[in-house]
Protein backbone atom coordinates (compact mmCIF):
# COMPACT_ATOMS: atom_id res chain seq x y z
CA UNK A 1 0.00 0.00 0.00
CA UNK A 2 1.71 3.16 -1.16
CA UNK A 3 0.82 6.78 -1.73
CA UNK A 4 -1.60 9.03 0.12
CA UNK A 5 -4.68 7.35 1.50
CA UNK A 6 -7.70 8.76 3.30
CA UNK A 7 -8.61 5.42 4.87
CA UNK A 8 -6.23 2.55 5.45
CA UNK A 9 -7.42 -0.76 6.83
CA UNK A 10 -5.06 -3.57 7.79
CA UNK A 11 -6.06 -7.08 8.81
CA UNK A 12 -9.54 -5.89 9.75
CA UNK A 13 -11.85 -8.58 11.07
CA UNK A 14 -15.28 -8.13 12.60
CA UNK A 15 -16.93 -11.08 14.22
CA UNK A 16 -20.55 -11.13 15.42
CA UNK A 17 -20.83 -14.34 17.39
CA UNK A 18 -20.27 -17.16 14.93
CA UNK A 19 -20.70 -14.88 11.95
CA UNK A 20 -17.69 -13.15 10.43
CA UNK A 21 -18.92 -9.86 8.98
CA UNK A 22 -15.48 -8.70 7.79
CA UNK A 23 -12.67 -11.13 7.12
CA UNK A 24 -9.08 -9.92 7.41
CA UNK A 25 -9.47 -6.93 5.09
CA UNK A 26 -6.52 -4.93 3.78
CA UNK A 27 -7.77 -1.82 2.01
CA UNK A 28 -6.17 1.46 0.98
CA UNK A 29 -8.63 4.13 -0.08
CA UNK A 30 -7.00 7.03 -1.94
CA UNK A 31 -8.30 10.59 -2.30
CA UNK A 32 -11.16 11.05 -4.76
CA UNK A 33 -14.50 9.32 -4.98
CA UNK A 34 -14.38 5.69 -3.90
CA UNK A 35 -17.21 3.26 -4.30
CA UNK A 36 -17.76 0.66 -1.62
CA UNK A 37 -19.80 -1.96 -3.41
CA UNK A 38 -21.34 -5.25 -2.50
CA UNK A 39 -24.67 -6.92 -2.03
CA UNK A 40 -26.74 -6.36 1.10
CA UNK A 41 -24.93 -8.10 3.95
CA UNK A 42 -21.54 -7.84 2.25
CA UNK A 43 -20.16 -5.82 5.16
CA UNK A 44 -20.30 -2.29 3.74
CA UNK A 45 -22.19 -0.70 6.60
CA UNK A 46 -20.12 -2.59 9.17
CA UNK A 47 -16.95 -1.25 7.57
CA UNK A 48 -18.37 2.29 7.56
CA UNK A 49 -19.38 1.94 11.20
CA UNK A 50 -15.84 0.93 12.14
CA UNK A 51 -14.34 3.79 10.15
CA UNK A 52 -16.64 6.19 11.99
CA UNK A 53 -15.83 4.63 15.35
CA UNK A 54 -19.40 3.48 15.94
CA UNK A 55 -18.11 -0.09 16.29
CA UNK A 56 -14.82 -1.51 17.42
CA UNK A 57 -13.32 -4.18 15.19
CA UNK A 58 -12.54 -7.62 16.57
CA UNK A 59 -8.99 -7.30 15.24
CA UNK A 60 -6.95 -5.22 12.84
CA UNK A 61 -6.20 -1.53 12.52
CA UNK A 62 -7.89 1.41 10.84
CA UNK A 63 -6.44 4.78 9.96
CA UNK A 64 -8.69 7.63 8.85
CA UNK A 65 -7.14 10.86 7.53
CA UNK A 66 -3.85 9.61 8.95
CA UNK A 67 -5.23 9.25 12.47
CA UNK A 68 -6.19 6.28 14.61
CA UNK A 69 -9.92 6.39 15.46
CA UNK A 70 -9.25 4.68 18.79
CA UNK A 71 -6.95 7.51 19.90
CA UNK A 72 -8.26 10.53 18.02
CA UNK A 73 -11.84 9.55 17.28
CA UNK A 74 -13.33 12.93 18.12
CA UNK A 75 -10.81 14.82 15.97
CA UNK A 76 -11.44 12.49 13.07
CA UNK A 77 -15.19 12.73 13.33
CA UNK A 78 -15.03 16.54 13.41
CA UNK A 79 -13.58 16.34 9.88
CA UNK A 80 -15.72 13.51 8.55
CA UNK A 81 -19.25 14.00 7.27
CA UNK A 82 -21.69 11.13 7.29
CA UNK A 83 -25.01 10.60 5.57
CA UNK A 84 -26.58 7.38 6.81
CA UNK A 85 -28.80 5.17 4.72
CA UNK A 86 -31.58 5.26 7.25
CA UNK A 87 -33.98 8.17 7.36
CA UNK A 88 -32.70 10.05 10.41
CA UNK A 89 -34.31 13.36 9.76
CA UNK A 90 -36.52 14.91 12.43
CA UNK A 91 -39.83 15.43 10.68
CA UNK A 92 -40.89 18.66 12.35
CA UNK A 93 -37.57 20.47 12.02
CA UNK A 94 -36.76 22.95 9.27
CA UNK A 95 -34.03 21.73 6.93
CA UNK A 96 -31.83 24.74 7.67
CA UNK A 97 -32.15 24.26 11.44
CA UNK A 98 -31.23 20.58 11.14
CA UNK A 99 -28.15 21.24 9.02
CA UNK A 100 -27.12 24.16 11.25
CA UNK A 101 -27.48 22.06 14.39
CA UNK A 102 -25.26 19.25 13.08
CA UNK A 103 -22.69 21.78 11.88
CA UNK A 104 -22.52 23.20 15.39
CA UNK A 105 -22.16 19.70 16.82
CA UNK A 106 -19.25 19.19 14.41
CA UNK A 107 -17.61 22.25 15.93
CA UNK A 108 -18.59 25.31 13.90
CA UNK A 109 -19.48 28.56 15.69
CA UNK A 110 -23.19 29.38 15.62
CA UNK A 111 -23.06 32.18 13.01
CA UNK A 112 -20.77 30.19 10.75
CA UNK A 113 -22.99 27.12 11.14
CA UNK A 114 -26.04 29.16 10.14
CA UNK A 115 -24.34 30.58 7.04
CA UNK A 116 -22.87 27.28 5.97
CA UNK A 117 -26.19 25.48 6.49
CA UNK A 118 -27.78 27.83 3.98
CA UNK A 119 -24.83 27.59 1.60
CA UNK A 120 -24.88 23.79 1.71
CA UNK A 121 -28.61 23.64 1.11
CA UNK A 122 -28.22 26.00 -1.86
CA UNK A 123 -25.44 23.79 -3.18
CA UNK A 124 -27.61 20.66 -3.09
CA UNK A 125 -30.47 22.53 -4.75
CA UNK A 126 -32.65 23.18 -1.72
CA UNK A 127 -31.98 26.88 -1.30
CA UNK A 128 -35.57 27.88 -1.83
CA UNK A 129 -36.84 25.02 0.31
CA UNK A 130 -34.52 25.43 3.27
CA UNK A 131 -37.14 26.80 5.64
CA UNK A 132 -39.53 23.92 4.97
CA UNK A 133 -40.12 21.26 7.63
CA UNK A 134 -38.28 18.10 6.63
CA UNK A 135 -41.43 16.04 7.15
CA UNK A 136 -43.04 17.83 4.19
CA UNK A 137 -40.18 17.02 1.80
CA UNK A 138 -39.98 14.31 -0.85
CA UNK A 139 -37.56 11.38 -0.64
CA UNK A 140 -35.22 13.09 -3.10
CA UNK A 141 -35.21 16.29 -1.08
CA UNK A 142 -34.53 14.38 2.14
CA UNK A 143 -31.55 12.65 0.55
CA UNK A 144 -30.25 16.09 -0.39
CA UNK A 145 -30.74 17.34 3.17
CA UNK A 146 -28.69 14.37 4.38
CA UNK A 147 -25.95 15.26 1.90
CA UNK A 148 -26.09 18.92 2.94
CA UNK A 149 -25.63 18.10 6.63
CA UNK A 150 -22.72 15.81 5.75
CA UNK A 151 -20.81 18.53 3.91
CA UNK A 152 -21.89 21.66 5.81
CA UNK A 153 -19.04 21.58 8.36
CA UNK A 154 -16.44 21.43 5.56
CA UNK A 155 -15.28 17.85 6.09
CA UNK A 156 -12.19 16.38 4.48
CA UNK A 157 -14.04 13.13 3.89
CA UNK A 158 -17.71 12.21 3.60
CA UNK A 159 -19.17 8.76 3.99
CA UNK A 160 -22.40 8.34 2.05
CA UNK A 161 -24.40 5.21 2.72
CA UNK A 162 -26.73 4.42 -0.20
CA UNK A 163 -27.37 8.10 -1.03
CA UNK A 164 -29.53 7.29 -4.05
CA UNK A 165 -31.83 4.95 -2.20
CA UNK A 166 -35.45 5.66 -3.12
CA UNK A 167 -34.63 8.15 -5.86
CA UNK A 168 -36.11 8.09 -9.35
CA UNK A 169 -33.66 8.00 -12.31
CA UNK A 170 -33.55 11.77 -12.74
CA UNK A 171 -33.01 12.41 -9.04
CA UNK A 172 -30.33 9.73 -9.03
CA UNK A 173 -28.49 11.43 -11.88
CA UNK A 174 -28.62 14.73 -9.99
CA UNK A 175 -27.38 13.14 -6.77
CA UNK A 176 -24.49 11.43 -8.53
CA UNK A 177 -23.57 14.72 -10.21
CA UNK A 178 -23.57 16.42 -6.81
CA UNK A 179 -21.31 13.74 -5.36
CA UNK A 180 -18.88 14.19 -8.23
CA UNK A 181 -19.09 17.97 -7.80
CA UNK A 182 -18.21 18.00 -4.10
CA UNK A 183 -15.00 16.14 -4.92
CA UNK A 184 -14.09 17.96 -8.13
CA UNK A 185 -14.87 21.49 -6.95
CA UNK A 186 -14.35 21.40 -3.20
CA UNK A 187 -11.78 18.64 -2.83
CA UNK A 188 -13.87 16.62 -0.37
CA UNK A 189 -13.03 12.94 -0.61
CA UNK A 190 -16.03 10.64 -0.77
CA UNK A 191 -16.61 7.05 0.25
CA UNK A 192 -19.84 6.04 -1.44
CA UNK A 193 -21.48 2.84 -0.28
CA UNK A 194 -23.86 1.36 -2.82
CA UNK A 195 -25.21 -1.92 -4.04
CA UNK A 196 -25.88 -0.37 -7.45
CA UNK A 197 -22.77 -1.18 -9.49
CA UNK A 198 -23.79 0.97 -12.40
CA UNK A 199 -23.86 4.17 -10.36
CA UNK A 200 -20.48 3.39 -8.83
CA UNK A 201 -19.08 2.95 -12.34
CA UNK A 202 -20.50 6.33 -13.31
CA UNK A 203 -19.13 8.40 -10.48
CA UNK A 204 -16.20 6.68 -8.76
CA UNK A 205 -12.45 6.80 -9.39
CA UNK A 206 -11.68 3.87 -7.18
CA UNK A 207 -13.63 0.80 -6.12
CA UNK A 208 -13.59 -1.45 -3.07
CA UNK A 209 -15.77 -4.50 -3.62
CA UNK A 210 -16.88 -6.73 -0.77
CA UNK A 211 -18.69 -10.03 -0.84
CA UNK A 212 -19.75 -11.77 2.36
CA UNK A 213 -17.16 -9.81 4.33
CA UNK A 214 -14.27 -10.65 2.01
CA UNK A 215 -12.41 -8.30 -0.27
CA UNK A 216 -13.27 -9.04 -3.89
CA UNK A 217 -11.43 -6.12 -5.43
CA UNK A 218 -9.69 -2.91 -4.44
CA UNK A 219 -8.24 -0.61 -7.05
CA UNK A 220 -8.80 2.14 -9.60
CA UNK A 221 -12.03 1.61 -11.51
CA UNK A 222 -10.24 1.70 -14.87
CA UNK A 223 -7.93 -1.12 -13.80
CA UNK A 224 -10.73 -3.27 -12.44
CA UNK A 225 -13.04 -3.13 -15.40
CA UNK A 226 -10.16 -2.95 -17.86
CA UNK A 227 -9.47 -0.63 -20.72
CA UNK A 228 -10.36 -3.25 -23.34
CA UNK A 229 -13.43 -2.90 -25.46
CA UNK A 230 -15.39 -5.86 -26.71
CA UNK A 231 -18.04 -6.99 -29.18
CA UNK A 232 -20.34 -9.94 -29.25
CA UNK A 233 -20.92 -11.42 -32.69
CA UNK A 234 -23.57 -13.95 -33.54
CA UNK A 235 -22.82 -15.49 -36.93
CA UNK A 236 -24.67 -17.73 -39.36
CA UNK A 237 -22.83 -20.16 -41.62
CA UNK A 238 -23.90 -20.17 -45.20
CA UNK A 239 -24.31 -23.40 -47.17
CA UNK A 240 -21.16 -23.22 -49.27
CA UNK A 241 -18.93 -22.12 -46.35
CA UNK A 242 -19.53 -24.79 -43.67
CA UNK A 243 -16.50 -23.79 -41.56
CA UNK A 244 -16.90 -20.06 -41.86
CA UNK A 245 -17.45 -19.41 -38.13
CA UNK A 246 -14.29 -21.35 -37.27
CA UNK A 247 -12.42 -19.42 -39.93
CA UNK A 248 -13.66 -16.04 -38.62
CA UNK A 249 -12.64 -17.00 -35.08
CA UNK A 250 -9.20 -18.09 -36.24
CA UNK A 251 -8.71 -14.92 -38.27
CA UNK A 252 -9.67 -12.68 -35.35
CA UNK A 253 -7.37 -14.61 -33.02
CA UNK A 254 -4.59 -14.29 -35.55
CA UNK A 255 -5.13 -10.50 -35.45
CA UNK A 256 -4.15 -10.54 -31.80
CA UNK A 257 -7.67 -10.26 -30.37
CA UNK A 258 -9.08 -12.40 -27.55
CA UNK A 259 -11.81 -14.62 -28.97
CA UNK A 260 -14.17 -16.90 -27.10
CA UNK A 261 -16.60 -19.12 -28.97
CA UNK A 262 -19.90 -20.43 -27.70
CA UNK A 263 -21.70 -22.10 -30.60
CA UNK A 264 -22.39 -19.47 -33.21
CA UNK A 265 -21.61 -16.64 -30.79
CA UNK A 266 -18.13 -15.15 -30.74
CA UNK A 267 -17.06 -12.77 -27.98
CA UNK A 268 -14.16 -10.67 -29.18
CA UNK A 269 -12.13 -8.35 -26.93
CA UNK A 270 -9.55 -5.89 -28.19
CA UNK A 271 -7.66 -2.78 -27.17
CA UNK A 272 -10.01 -0.30 -28.80
CA UNK A 273 -13.18 -0.10 -30.83
CA UNK A 274 -11.58 0.86 -34.15
CA UNK A 275 -9.16 -2.08 -34.20
CA UNK A 276 -11.96 -4.39 -33.18
CA UNK A 277 -14.39 -3.11 -35.77
CA UNK A 278 -11.89 -3.24 -38.62
CA UNK A 279 -10.68 -6.75 -37.79
CA UNK A 280 -14.21 -8.07 -37.39
CA UNK A 281 -15.37 -6.55 -40.69
CA UNK A 282 -12.39 -7.95 -42.55
CA UNK A 283 -12.69 -11.45 -41.07
CA UNK A 284 -16.41 -11.76 -41.72
CA UNK A 285 -16.04 -10.43 -45.29
CA UNK A 286 -13.13 -12.74 -46.07
CA UNK A 287 -14.69 -15.96 -44.77
CA UNK A 288 -18.22 -15.31 -45.86
CA UNK A 289 -20.18 -15.72 -42.65
CA UNK A 290 -23.36 -13.72 -42.12
CA UNK A 291 -23.78 -11.54 -39.07
CA UNK A 292 -27.06 -12.18 -37.23
CA UNK A 293 -26.28 -9.92 -34.26
CA UNK A 294 -23.48 -7.54 -33.36
CA UNK A 295 -23.39 -5.78 -30.00
CA UNK A 296 -20.74 -3.95 -28.05
CA UNK A 297 -19.57 -5.56 -24.88
CA UNK A 298 -17.76 -3.73 -22.09
CA UNK A 299 -16.50 -5.33 -18.93
CA UNK A 300 -18.43 -4.04 -15.91
CA UNK A 301 -18.26 -4.32 -12.15
CA UNK A 302 -21.00 -6.89 -12.46
CA UNK A 303 -18.58 -9.08 -14.42
CA UNK A 304 -16.12 -8.65 -11.58
CA UNK A 305 -18.62 -10.10 -9.15
CA UNK A 306 -19.78 -12.82 -11.57
CA UNK A 307 -16.20 -14.02 -11.96
CA UNK A 308 -15.91 -14.70 -8.25
CA UNK A 309 -15.98 -18.41 -7.36
Amino acid at each position, binding site marked *: MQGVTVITVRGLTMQFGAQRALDNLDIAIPPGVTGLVGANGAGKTTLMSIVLGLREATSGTVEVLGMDPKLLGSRIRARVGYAPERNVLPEDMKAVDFVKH*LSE*VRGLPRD*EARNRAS*DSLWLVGLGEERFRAIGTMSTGQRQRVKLAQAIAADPKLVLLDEPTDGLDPMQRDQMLALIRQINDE*FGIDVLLSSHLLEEVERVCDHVVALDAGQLVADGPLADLIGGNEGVELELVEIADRPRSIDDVADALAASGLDVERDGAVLTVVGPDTDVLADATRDAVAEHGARIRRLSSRKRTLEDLFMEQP
Partner: protein
Amino acid sequence: MSDEAKILDRGYRSYEGHRSGVGGAIRSVAWHSMRTVLGVGRPARHKIFPAVSVIIAYLPALVFVGIAALLPVDLVGEEALPSYADYVGFIGIAIVLFCGLVAPEVLVRDRRDGMLGLYLSTPLQRDTYLVAKVAAVMTTLMIVTLGPPLLLLIAYTFEGSGPGGVGDWLVLFVRIVASGVAISAVFAAVSLAASSLTDRRAFASVGVILVLLGSSAVASALVEAAEMSTNVRLFDLLAMPFELVQRIYGETGDFPEIETTLVAGANIGWALFGTAVVWFRYRRLAVSR
Protein backbone atom coordinates in the same frame (compact mmCIF):
# COMPACT_ATOMS: atom_id res chain seq x y z
CA MET B 1 -25.59 52.70 -2.93
CA SER B 2 -22.89 53.82 -0.48
CA ASP B 3 -19.19 53.48 -1.23
CA GLU B 4 -18.93 50.70 1.34
CA ALA B 5 -21.68 48.55 -0.16
CA LYS B 6 -20.36 45.30 -1.59
CA ILE B 7 -21.79 42.35 -3.40
CA LEU B 8 -20.44 39.30 -1.62
CA ASP B 9 -19.89 36.16 -3.64
CA ARG B 10 -21.23 33.70 -1.12
CA GLY B 11 -21.71 30.02 -1.71
CA TYR B 12 -20.19 26.83 -0.46
CA ARG B 13 -16.54 27.30 0.48
CA SER B 14 -13.95 25.84 2.80
CA TYR B 15 -13.77 26.73 6.48
CA GLU B 16 -10.43 27.16 8.21
CA GLY B 17 -11.63 28.78 11.43
CA HIS B 18 -11.89 27.55 15.00
CA ARG B 19 -13.76 24.34 15.81
CA SER B 20 -15.20 23.98 19.27
CA GLY B 21 -14.54 20.26 19.70
CA VAL B 22 -16.30 18.02 22.18
CA GLY B 23 -17.27 20.86 24.54
CA GLY B 24 -19.06 22.69 21.76
CA ALA B 25 -20.78 19.49 20.65
CA ILE B 26 -22.07 18.87 24.19
CA ARG B 27 -23.33 22.44 24.47
CA SER B 28 -25.02 22.26 21.10
CA VAL B 29 -26.78 18.96 21.73
CA ALA B 30 -27.86 20.03 25.22
CA TRP B 31 -29.23 23.33 23.92
CA HIS B 32 -30.96 21.67 20.99
CA SER B 33 -32.51 19.04 23.29
CA MET B 34 -33.88 21.73 25.60
CA ARG B 35 -35.39 23.63 22.70
CA THR B 36 -36.93 20.42 21.40
CA VAL B 37 -38.53 19.57 24.75
CA LEU B 38 -39.94 23.06 25.15
CA GLY B 39 -41.30 23.02 21.61
CA VAL B 40 -39.13 25.93 20.41
CA GLY B 41 -38.96 25.94 16.62
CA ARG B 42 -41.55 23.16 16.46
CA PRO B 43 -45.27 23.21 15.60
CA ALA B 44 -47.69 24.54 18.22
CA ARG B 45 -48.86 21.13 19.41
CA HIS B 46 -45.39 20.43 20.82
CA LYS B 47 -45.53 23.57 22.93
CA ILE B 48 -48.80 22.77 24.73
CA PHE B 49 -47.65 20.22 27.31
CA PRO B 50 -44.46 22.00 28.41
CA ALA B 51 -46.39 25.27 28.56
CA VAL B 52 -49.07 23.71 30.79
CA SER B 53 -46.43 22.25 33.12
CA VAL B 54 -44.60 25.56 33.36
CA ILE B 55 -47.85 27.44 34.00
CA ILE B 56 -48.78 24.97 36.78
CA ALA B 57 -45.35 25.53 38.32
CA TYR B 58 -45.27 29.31 38.08
CA LEU B 59 -48.91 30.34 38.49
CA PRO B 60 -49.04 29.73 42.27
CA ALA B 61 -45.84 31.74 42.68
CA LEU B 62 -47.37 34.65 40.79
CA VAL B 63 -50.55 34.39 42.89
CA PHE B 64 -48.57 34.38 46.14
CA VAL B 65 -46.45 37.30 45.00
CA GLY B 66 -49.68 39.13 44.10
CA ILE B 67 -51.21 38.38 47.50
CA ALA B 68 -48.06 39.56 49.26
CA ALA B 69 -47.99 42.73 47.18
CA LEU B 70 -51.64 43.65 47.41
CA LEU B 71 -52.67 42.55 50.90
CA PRO B 72 -50.99 43.52 54.18
CA VAL B 73 -49.24 40.63 55.90
CA ASP B 74 -51.20 41.17 59.14
CA LEU B 75 -54.44 40.82 57.18
CA VAL B 76 -53.70 37.53 55.44
CA GLY B 77 -51.24 36.18 58.04
CA GLU B 78 -47.76 34.84 57.21
CA GLU B 79 -49.06 31.27 57.23
CA ALA B 80 -51.22 32.03 54.21
CA LEU B 81 -48.06 32.15 52.13
CA PRO B 82 -46.23 28.81 51.82
CA SER B 83 -42.58 28.49 52.82
CA TYR B 84 -40.05 27.97 50.04
CA ALA B 85 -39.76 24.30 51.00
CA ASP B 86 -43.52 23.85 50.97
CA TYR B 87 -43.78 25.59 47.62
CA VAL B 88 -41.65 22.91 45.92
CA GLY B 89 -44.01 20.26 47.30
CA PHE B 90 -46.95 22.44 46.29
CA ILE B 91 -45.95 22.24 42.64
CA GLY B 92 -44.92 18.56 42.88
CA ILE B 93 -47.50 17.50 40.32
CA ALA B 94 -46.03 19.89 37.75
CA ILE B 95 -42.57 18.54 38.46
CA VAL B 96 -43.70 14.92 38.03
CA LEU B 97 -45.58 15.73 34.82
CA PHE B 98 -42.58 17.59 33.48
CA CYS B 99 -40.38 14.61 34.35
CA GLY B 100 -42.66 12.36 32.32
CA LEU B 101 -42.26 14.68 29.35
CA VAL B 102 -38.64 15.74 29.42
CA ALA B 103 -36.45 12.64 29.63
CA PRO B 104 -38.40 10.55 27.09
CA GLU B 105 -38.38 13.45 24.63
CA VAL B 106 -34.66 14.04 25.13
CA LEU B 107 -33.47 10.43 25.05
CA VAL B 108 -35.98 8.17 23.29
CA ARG B 109 -36.45 10.38 20.26
CA ASP B 110 -32.81 10.08 19.19
CA ARG B 111 -32.83 6.29 19.39
CA ARG B 112 -36.15 5.99 17.64
CA ASP B 113 -35.39 8.17 14.62
CA GLY B 114 -31.70 7.21 14.29
CA MET B 115 -30.28 10.59 15.30
CA LEU B 116 -28.16 8.78 17.90
CA GLY B 117 -26.08 7.20 15.14
CA LEU B 118 -25.70 10.56 13.45
CA TYR B 119 -24.62 12.23 16.71
CA LEU B 120 -22.07 9.48 17.30
CA SER B 121 -20.59 10.20 13.88
CA THR B 122 -19.66 13.66 15.21
CA PRO B 123 -17.02 14.44 17.88
CA LEU B 124 -19.45 13.06 20.47
CA GLN B 125 -19.01 9.60 21.95
CA ARG B 126 -21.54 7.69 23.99
CA ASP B 127 -20.31 9.14 27.27
CA THR B 128 -20.18 12.72 26.06
CA TYR B 129 -23.53 12.32 24.33
CA LEU B 130 -25.03 11.26 27.66
CA VAL B 131 -23.39 14.20 29.42
CA ALA B 132 -25.18 16.49 26.95
CA LYS B 133 -28.48 14.73 27.54
CA VAL B 134 -28.17 14.75 31.34
CA ALA B 135 -27.32 18.44 31.21
CA ALA B 136 -30.37 19.08 29.02
CA VAL B 137 -32.75 17.14 31.25
CA MET B 138 -31.43 18.68 34.47
CA THR B 139 -31.45 22.21 33.13
CA THR B 140 -34.94 21.81 31.73
CA LEU B 141 -36.23 20.34 34.98
CA MET B 142 -34.73 23.30 36.82
CA ILE B 143 -37.15 25.53 34.96
CA VAL B 144 -39.84 24.13 37.25
CA THR B 145 -37.77 23.13 40.29
CA LEU B 146 -35.53 26.17 40.60
CA GLY B 147 -37.34 28.90 38.71
CA PRO B 148 -40.47 29.36 40.82
CA PRO B 149 -38.72 29.58 44.24
CA LEU B 150 -36.20 31.99 42.72
CA LEU B 151 -39.07 34.05 41.35
CA LEU B 152 -40.63 34.11 44.82
CA LEU B 153 -37.34 35.18 46.40
CA ILE B 154 -36.77 37.99 43.93
CA ALA B 155 -40.37 39.20 44.05
CA TYR B 156 -40.56 39.08 47.86
CA THR B 157 -37.24 40.92 48.04
CA PHE B 158 -38.51 43.73 45.82
CA GLU B 159 -41.75 43.89 47.82
CA GLY B 160 -39.76 44.21 51.04
CA SER B 161 -41.03 40.94 52.44
CA GLY B 162 -37.92 38.90 51.67
CA PRO B 163 -35.16 37.79 54.05
CA GLY B 164 -33.99 40.33 56.66
CA GLY B 165 -30.36 40.91 55.71
CA VAL B 166 -27.82 40.16 53.05
CA GLY B 167 -26.56 37.11 54.97
CA ASP B 168 -30.03 35.61 55.32
CA TRP B 169 -30.76 36.41 51.70
CA LEU B 170 -27.64 34.59 50.56
CA VAL B 171 -28.36 31.57 52.77
CA LEU B 172 -31.86 31.34 51.36
CA PHE B 173 -30.53 31.78 47.82
CA VAL B 174 -28.06 28.93 48.31
CA ARG B 175 -30.82 26.73 49.77
CA ILE B 176 -33.07 27.46 46.80
CA VAL B 177 -30.32 26.63 44.32
CA ALA B 178 -29.21 23.52 46.21
CA SER B 179 -32.74 22.17 46.53
CA GLY B 180 -33.50 22.92 42.86
CA VAL B 181 -30.34 21.17 41.70
CA ALA B 182 -30.87 18.22 44.07
CA ILE B 183 -34.46 17.54 43.10
CA SER B 184 -33.61 17.95 39.41
CA ALA B 185 -30.65 15.57 39.68
CA VAL B 186 -32.67 12.77 41.29
CA PHE B 187 -35.66 13.10 38.99
CA ALA B 188 -33.39 13.46 35.95
CA ALA B 189 -31.50 10.28 36.79
CA VAL B 190 -34.64 8.26 37.49
CA SER B 191 -36.49 9.48 34.42
CA LEU B 192 -33.46 9.00 32.17
CA ALA B 193 -33.05 5.45 33.47
CA ALA B 194 -36.69 4.63 32.70
CA SER B 195 -36.39 6.29 29.28
CA SER B 196 -33.27 4.32 28.36
CA LEU B 197 -35.16 1.04 28.53
CA THR B 198 -37.73 1.56 25.80
CA ASP B 199 -37.82 2.99 22.28
CA ARG B 200 -41.41 4.23 22.68
CA ARG B 201 -41.79 7.75 24.04
CA ALA B 202 -45.30 7.14 25.34
CA PHE B 203 -44.17 4.02 27.21
CA ALA B 204 -41.24 5.93 28.63
CA SER B 205 -43.46 8.78 29.81
CA VAL B 206 -45.92 6.42 31.46
CA GLY B 207 -43.00 4.42 32.85
CA VAL B 208 -41.40 7.47 34.46
CA ILE B 209 -44.66 8.47 36.14
CA LEU B 210 -45.43 4.87 37.17
CA VAL B 211 -41.97 4.41 38.70
CA LEU B 212 -42.39 7.58 40.74
CA LEU B 213 -46.00 7.02 41.81
CA GLY B 214 -45.64 3.23 42.11
CA SER B 215 -42.61 3.39 44.38
CA SER B 216 -44.43 5.88 46.55
CA ALA B 217 -47.56 3.70 46.79
CA VAL B 218 -45.57 0.56 47.55
CA ALA B 219 -43.42 2.27 50.20
CA SER B 220 -46.50 3.79 51.85
CA ALA B 221 -48.29 0.45 51.86
CA LEU B 222 -45.30 -1.33 53.36
CA VAL B 223 -44.87 1.24 56.11
CA GLU B 224 -48.48 1.94 56.93
CA ALA B 225 -50.29 -1.32 56.19
CA ALA B 226 -47.52 -3.86 56.72
CA GLU B 227 -45.99 -1.77 59.54
CA MET B 228 -42.48 -2.16 58.23
CA SER B 229 -39.64 0.18 59.21
CA THR B 230 -40.08 3.83 58.33
CA ASN B 231 -36.77 3.60 56.51
CA VAL B 232 -38.61 1.75 53.73
CA ARG B 233 -39.66 5.27 52.74
CA LEU B 234 -36.12 5.67 51.41
CA PHE B 235 -37.34 3.63 48.42
CA ASP B 236 -40.10 6.17 47.79
CA LEU B 237 -38.70 7.84 44.66
CA LEU B 238 -41.43 10.46 44.64
CA ALA B 239 -41.24 11.56 48.27
CA MET B 240 -37.51 11.38 48.95
CA PRO B 241 -36.43 14.29 46.72
CA PHE B 242 -39.11 16.51 48.28
CA GLU B 243 -38.07 15.31 51.74
CA LEU B 244 -34.49 16.29 50.92
CA VAL B 245 -35.69 19.75 49.92
CA GLN B 246 -37.38 20.14 53.31
CA ARG B 247 -34.15 19.17 55.06
CA ILE B 248 -32.10 21.58 52.92
CA TYR B 249 -34.38 24.38 54.15
CA GLY B 250 -33.79 23.16 57.71
CA GLU B 251 -37.31 21.88 58.20
CA THR B 252 -38.29 18.52 59.71
CA GLY B 253 -40.11 17.28 56.63
CA ASP B 254 -42.91 14.74 56.33
CA PHE B 255 -40.83 11.88 57.74
CA PRO B 256 -38.95 13.35 60.72
CA GLU B 257 -38.15 9.88 62.05
CA ILE B 258 -35.73 9.31 59.13
CA GLU B 259 -32.32 10.88 59.66
CA THR B 260 -31.24 13.62 57.29
CA THR B 261 -28.07 11.73 56.38
CA LEU B 262 -30.18 8.77 55.30
CA VAL B 263 -32.45 11.02 53.25
CA ALA B 264 -29.45 12.62 51.57
CA GLY B 265 -27.79 9.22 51.07
CA ALA B 266 -30.93 7.74 49.53
CA ASN B 267 -31.22 10.62 47.08
CA ILE B 268 -27.56 10.39 46.11
CA GLY B 269 -27.98 6.62 45.76
CA TRP B 270 -30.99 6.92 43.50
CA ALA B 271 -29.26 9.55 41.37
CA LEU B 272 -26.20 7.31 40.99
CA PHE B 273 -28.31 4.24 40.35
CA GLY B 274 -30.32 5.97 37.63
CA THR B 275 -27.15 7.30 36.02
CA ALA B 276 -25.56 3.84 36.12
CA VAL B 277 -28.59 2.26 34.44
CA VAL B 278 -28.43 4.77 31.58
CA TRP B 279 -24.66 4.42 31.26
CA PHE B 280 -24.72 0.62 31.11
CA ARG B 281 -27.66 0.63 28.74
CA TYR B 282 -25.88 2.99 26.32
CA ARG B 283 -22.58 1.12 26.54
CA ARG B 284 -24.34 -2.00 25.35
CA LEU B 285 -26.61 -0.32 22.82
CA ALA B 286 -25.84 -1.41 19.26
CA VAL B 287 -25.52 1.64 17.03
CA SER B 288 -24.50 0.72 13.53
CA ARG B 289 -25.69 3.70 11.52
